């Protein structure tokens, strides 16, 4: 955590105009390349080979988070056929998690993929938020504070997984709606989120993120041929607390395999680095330009004065 604090401080310092501090700390920025996350952060390993698409997780989430009654019952599987704008179902202000069905030509059965907030180690929503509405808790959850949110929706732009949604239907009390890992009701007491508890197939395994990676690797190693040799989320966007195992290449089950392998913040760093430079160099530079540009006039003025004195 120390590392990330120092980097954020560096940026704060730059903005406040405390140039020297900023320049000194910028060295740390180079060194502090990535935030490894809280060591004891929890996570969930989703095994796509186990999911049978029963939507129990969706139902459990709906009840746990007090979300509105859905249009169709949770045991209605026709939702898997729903397509909007050519896209399968996604999270919205009524659902923090949804399961989608993928028909894989090589397989005799479909695969199902649950989506929800992946609770990144260094979340893009958090780093893009200008009112600090997001917090990554030591337990691993990325939580949101609706009391300070301004509703700019930059987090929705920044999230590489298209997870945060906005309560567009409300004029007076809108907010971001997103999975919070059941933080206030469960995770902070060490309990698994409602969806994990509801899953009959244990397609969702809850545990310490580090242990889950070991477990995922064991599954891949001990059942050769069953899984693609990759844990999605171990490295993606700097690592996520929710990770996935799949029997087919991840792009066939709706994953974006082109997301960066480092935190989203890293692509913004180039700009953040110039901020203290502009703040410190520009004033002197342009004051200098001004003196140079107006020198002739000054000389003329002085000459005029001298002439006047002589006369």
């Amino acid at each position, binding site marked *: 955590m120390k590392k990330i604090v120092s980097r954020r401080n560096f940026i704060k310092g730059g903005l*406040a105009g405390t140039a020297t501090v900023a320049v000194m700390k910028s060295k740390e920025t180079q060194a502090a390349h990535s935030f490894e996350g809280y060591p004891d952060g929890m996570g969930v390993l989703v095994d796509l080979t186990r999911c049978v698409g029963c939507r129990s997780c969706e139902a459990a989430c709906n009840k746990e988070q007090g979300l509105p009654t859905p249009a169709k019952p949770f045991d209605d599987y026709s939702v898997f056929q729903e397509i909007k704008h050519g896209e399968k179902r996604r999270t919205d202000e009524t659902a923090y998690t949804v399961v989608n069905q993928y028909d894989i030509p090589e397989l005799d059965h479909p695969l199902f993929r649950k989506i929800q907030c992946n609770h990144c180690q260094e979340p893009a929503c958090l780093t893009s938020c*200008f*009112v600090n509405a997001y917090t990554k808790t030591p337990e691993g959850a990325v939580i949101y504070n609706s009391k300070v949110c*301004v509703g700019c929706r930059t987090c929705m732009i*920044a999230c590489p997984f298209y997870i945060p949604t906005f309560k567009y239907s409300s*004029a007076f009390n809108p907010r971001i709606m997103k999975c919070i890992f059941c933080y206030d009701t469960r995770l902070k007491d060490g309990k698994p989120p409602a969806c994990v508890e509801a899953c009959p197939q244990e397609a969702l395994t809850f545990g310490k993120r580090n242990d889950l990676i070991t477990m995922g690797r064991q599954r891949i190693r001990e059942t050769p041929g069953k899984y693609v040799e990759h844990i999605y989320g171990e490295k993606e966007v700097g690592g996520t607390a929710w990770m996935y195992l799949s029997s087919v290449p991840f792009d066939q089950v709706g994953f974006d395999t082109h997301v960066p392998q480092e935190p989203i913040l890293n692509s*913004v760093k180039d700009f953040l680095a110039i*901020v203290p430079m502009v703040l410190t160099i520009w004033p002197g530079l342009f004051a200098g330009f*001004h003196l140079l540009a107006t020198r002739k006039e000054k000389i003329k003025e002085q000459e005029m004065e001298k002439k006047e004195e002589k006369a």
Partner: protein
Amino acid sequence: MKFFSKERPEIPIVNHLKADGTEWTIKEKLWLGLSLGEYKKQFLRNPVNWLMIAIFAVGIPLLLQRYIYGLGAVTHASNDYPWGLFLGFGLFGMVPLSASGFMLGTTVELFGRKDFHPIERLALLNGLLGYFFAVLFLEVDLGMPWRLPYPMFVSLGPAAVLFLVAWHVATYLSVQIAEVLPAFFEWIGWLKGKRVIRKMVLGLTIAGIILSTLHQGALGALFTYAPSKVHPLWLSVNFQWIHFFCSSIFAGLSMVIISSTLIRNFMAWRCDDEFKDNLDYITIGLAKGCSYAMITYLIIKIVAIAHDQEWSYLLTGWGSYYMLELGVAVVLPMFMFAIGIRHRYVGLIRFAALIAALGIIWNRLNTSMICYNWQMYQEIPHWKEVWITITVYSLYFLTYRFIVYRLPIVYGWKGEK
């Protein structure tokens, strides 16, 4: 608009004193020295006002709908495209078109180019209003507009690019108000205020450059938060802020050319001779600035493609669209500017400025909406969203006109100053 001079020689007002030696009151100044009946008559005679009335007749109820029933009532409430026209056009388009303030401020005050002085105030006003209305567009778009000051005073997220945009736009707005205030002080006749500002001009101008460099760049840097969503041709992680900053230079200058042309043609009664006589010369000067900025912009655009090894994208459909944008919005006006400068075709320059300004809006819409989520479906804004955007822009137009009608922007105040 010749009526001003025909019946009443003392208007338009350019002085504190009437022909008979008594002072104009503020109220009279506000009514342009006309009686209520006369004012009404001239207002209704102008067809533009009828268009405005039509726009507002639909637009104001729509705005009410937005504030009573939420954004979902007037937009498609998209979670895939969180930003629509209000920001795509209103913020990302208006801000570069308002870079004129700091450009001309720098030219005149910092580099001592007094020959651009006749247009300085127009450029400053153009900047101020552009920013003010960008904030207004933001207020339409924000989910909780009443929390606008939160990033400043309540809950600070200083590591975010938007934090920088918020602070810089806010401070720059204050700087621009200070820069336009002298015109207002002359008009109301409070000279002490003007002298105070005069002393701060150099500081304000330098502050303007710093803030502009950073927030024009920051608007571009906002998209680097979405490296996997914006089409690679429109997003260069390393150069995005330079692209946005550099293009804002010719965008702002082009906007001043357009604005001064409109004022010269439709508000000739308000312009003084200094403005009218120098405008062609100044326009050519501005065009030089535009063409330099454009060639620089074009080069860094190409450098960015080379840097990210994106040549192969140029062969796709998106690549054709990209080249169309660069060709029509940058290369074409650049050559038009060049020819205009060489042969002193001011008309051609003015036409080029129009293309360049529309081109910048096009580029910003491409980055924020059209090429955003390029692997997904295309979001087409709700008609209500389009109408509200037009409504707010019309309000911008009216405010702009209201001020230019009155304050000494394109004419010199004849009274004491």
